[in-house]
């Protein structure tokens, strides 16, 4: 099993994003996803800027994949998606079936991100037939689920990636929760999500950390941490352990997870995702 770095899901200023990927270039992470996967109103970096970063990372020896939007609603977003698919250098991570449609139409291989619903082997096989090289296990599924699917798939199967570290992307809405919290209309949002570099923490009225609002995306407040499961995952045949960038430094993989209220691993064990077992 190898490491991968999922797309940066927060809106950081361009220089900070560039610094971040300059650091990523010298790590030993072999697979890097990058691109805007949350909101098309975020324009700190253009697709052209991401392509430049992608080339820099490729030249540093990385396998690079362009991540695409999870929720595609407007015609302009679809046009941009087609441009990403047709970039001529890198394959895409489809987070919406429109990405699958355009990649398949162009005869290009692709990766399915965690937002594509793959809940059984027949569905995985169908997408594999269409050109899916690898898929990220949907976030709410478990170790036992994965074992059964891998068993059903047998030898002819796409690669499998599991979100092993980071805040879990739980939902997407038309509404921008960050703008709303700041009493701004979505159409005049001023990209206010720039001010929340790891999302806006939401707690229950008993101060239990619950969610992180990241524009139109809702994440888990807790950070999923499956570092302790590394060997088990590798033995099962998981190909990549995904780290989703957080506000902090990249996690040390050698360290065992520290159990605290801000970490969770319930989904992996077939329980409520918020739980830490």
């Amino acid at each position: 099993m190898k490491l991968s770095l999922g797309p940066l899901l927060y809106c950081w200023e361009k220089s900070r994003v560039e610094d971040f990927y300059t650091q990523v270039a010298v790590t030993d992470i072999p697979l890097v996803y990058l691109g805007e996967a949350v909101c098309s109103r975020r324009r700190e970096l253009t697709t052209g800027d991401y392509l430049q970063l992608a080339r820099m990372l490729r030249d540093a020896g990385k396998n690079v994949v362009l991540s695409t939007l999870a929720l595609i609603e407007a015609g302009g977003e679809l046009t941009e998606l087609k441009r990403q698919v047709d970039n001529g250098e890198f394959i895409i991570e489809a987070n919406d079936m429109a990405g699958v449609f355009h990649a398949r139409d162009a005869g290009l291989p692709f990766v399915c991100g965690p937002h594509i619903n793959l809940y059984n082997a027949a569905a995985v096989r169908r997408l594999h037939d269409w050109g899916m090289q690898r898929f990220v296990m949907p976030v709410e599924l478990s170790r036992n689920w994965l074992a059964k699917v891998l068993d059903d798939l047998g030898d002819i199967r796409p690669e499998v990636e599991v979100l092993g570290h980071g805040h879990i992307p739980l939902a997407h809405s038309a509404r921008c929760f960050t703008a709303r919290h700041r009493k701004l209309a979505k159409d005049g949002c001023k990209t206010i999500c720039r001010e929340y570099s790891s999302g806006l923490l939401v707690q229950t009225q008993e101060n239990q950390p619950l969610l992180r609002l990241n524009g139109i995306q809702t994440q888990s407040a807790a950070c999923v941490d499956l570092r302790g499961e590394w060997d088990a995952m590798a033995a099962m045949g998981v190909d990549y352990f995904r780290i989703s960038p957080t506000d902090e430094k990249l996690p040390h993989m050698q360290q065992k997870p520290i159990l605290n209220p801000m970490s969770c691993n319930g989904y992996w064990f077939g329980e409520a995702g918020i739980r830490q077992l």
Partner: protein
Amino acid sequence: MELLCPAGNLAALKTAIKAGADAIYLGLKDDTNARSFAGLNFTPEKLEEAARFTHGAGKKLYMTLNTFPKPGEEQRWYHAVDLAAKVNADALIVADLSLLDYASSRYPHIPLHLSVQASATNHGALSLYKQAFNIERAVLPRVLSMKQVRDLAKDSPVDLEVFAFGSLCIMAEGRCHLSSYVTGQSPNTGGSCSPANAVRWQEEDGNRMTRLNDVLIDKAKVNEQIGYPVVCKGRFTAEDSDSPSYLLESPTSLNTLSLLPELARAGVVSLKIEGRQRSPAYVEQVTRVWRAAIDTFMAAPERYQVQTQWDQALAKVSEGQVTTLGAYERQWQ
């Protein structure tokens, strides 16, 4: 325009048809559909009875198979498709690729409607499902603005159905994991959003605490009207403010009576009423109002106006007695 109404049981189904539904949708009494609440839905025998009654009245019956088959248990979902074929269902409402595959190859004569749980919101996604499985219709998630619905309808490869009334789901359906994050049960895998067995109410010092699997979703005065506890409609605090508020959405229902002419002009073929989990009384009230509205519009489109008594009747059966246009209205977003 078709008026499509929910039926959680035979009584609701008969009520809906008598009150003017053109078609009804229902599911089996198990996790092959995303409303598997106790006491709801249809056994195979009841399904046959439902089909007889519906077809006898000259109306259509759509079977909902909108969860994603679990590995090792796929046969149960395939069997549900077979059952629907046996009772001559007029369409299957499906989200999963393997089920679309199975239904389109075994029963190509049964129309396939892409469930809202498939979360298809754009031309690319709809084209994929059309090409691969020849779907006839798609149910749009409640995340598009009216303009986006209009734009999509212009060159959609399939007919479109929209949610017209009922509980407001504010996330892209089929891709929301808030329920499983807190309770372990997910709409996608056959539970339901916020399963009833995870809900607990307790009174403390004049307040009513609403818990979902021990997570505090809301705290209200005991005399305050509260909605069914779902994570997205809870009152929480943000890191930069101490006072609890509805940070995502307040308990409210979708009501698009005022959009009816625009939806019709856009070419939307079906208006869906949400609420298989609701009572026959709800189904009757809502169906009657929407039947009257559609008939009034059809008779004289240019003179259509929402009548006060319609809104009043619908407000009574709305969550928190408050209604919204939701994402159809850009302001809401």
